[in-house]
């Protein structure tokens, strides 16, 4: 029977190393996908995954006072991703050559039968969206990714980013306004 997250966290804070290993296994994919959406490449996503769990390990004593482990974990990951975004400011790490990444690309774009032309068009569109996201400042970008890509609520994002919900709303609104402006033609074409 799978163990609950709070019980794993409690065992981990009591010094049980196997509980930490279990937490890594449970959350590494979530952190990787989130980091990939924020940073747009495998190497940075990999760095975020490793650094996030190492930081959690070092801060294990703090976990006794943490009520929401998932939010705590994602906060560490997003803070590190923001650091990387600021470090990368001025050049885009995004590549359209996804074939260089390990594993298979999982793209669920549509249920209908797709022609090579459709697939190419979708790939171009996704790249345009990613480039538009890349132009946003780190906080706005991460808010948009957490809300519109990953599906977190505004209240959850406020907890993750440790800021008022009004700030989340504001950042999300500004991010969407900028994205609408950049992707204006694309959005009009889809009507």
């Amino acid at each position, binding site marked *: 029977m799978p163990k609950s997250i709070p019980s794993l966290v409690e065992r981990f804070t009591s010094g049980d190393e196997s509980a930490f290993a279990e937490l*890594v296994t449970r959350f590494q994919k979530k952190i990787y996908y989130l980091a990939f959406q924020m940073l747009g490449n495998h190497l940075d996503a990999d760095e975020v995954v490793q650094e996030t769990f190492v930081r959690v390990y070092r801060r294990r004593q703090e976990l006794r006072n943490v009520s929401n482990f998932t939010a705590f974990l994602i906060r560490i990951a997003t803070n590190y991703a923001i650091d990387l975004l600021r470090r990368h400011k001025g050049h885009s790490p995004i590549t359209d050559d996804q074939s260089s990444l390990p594993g*298979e690309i*999982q*793209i669920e*774009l549509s249920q209908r039968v797709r022609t090579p032309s459709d697939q190419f068009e979708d790939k171009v569109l996704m790249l345009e969206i990613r480039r538009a996201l890349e132009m946003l400042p780190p906080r706005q970008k991460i808010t948009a990714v957490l809300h*519109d890509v990953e599906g977190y609520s505004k209240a959850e994002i406020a907890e993750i980013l440790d800021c008022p919900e009004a700030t989340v709303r504001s950042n999300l609104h500004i991010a969407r306004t900028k994205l609408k402006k950049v992707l204006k033609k694309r*959005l009009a074409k889809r009507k």
Partner: protein
Amino acid sequence: MTCQHLLSLLEDYVDNDLSATDRARVSEHLDCCATCRAEYEAIRNLKGLLKRQPTTDPGQPYWSEVSSLILARTVEAAPLAQSGRTLRLDTSERTTFIRALVSAAVSVSILVAALFLGSGVELQQPVAVLVAKQPLLISSSLTGLVDANHGSIITRDEQIRLVRGLSLLGPPGAIGRFPVIPNLMTTFD
């Protein structure tokens, strides 16, 4: 409801964050206002496109490898975590620190080996000047140095020891970076 009021509620409407009453009022307005309807469509389409952003699964070997790496790194961090201290070094600083340590260790070993190998040899002035001025050229001139007829100056045994000593006096890290030097050395054994 005015268009301005509607626009202030529109994103919450798209996100399904409005009360039932406000939702009904927004719907009513959208049914009769083409401008606001266009704005609603734009936000909805944008949200739909962002939701479709592809994700990449790096594959099971990666997940196993990254788990092992994390656990290995936490073993390094364990004493710090237990003592309650915070390690301030980030990844790049740690890499630089490790490189500096390795570089220092290599430099010391090169110095010790050079002293040991060259202890019985007195360098001729022209060779010493060459080493001091052009250390990078040592690797390409070793064969010529050994093969040349220096019988009247030093013996062959002394030449071999001299070559070993000279190769170690090159720039730190030269040995191992240029395979020609170790290969050359083995031919003398």
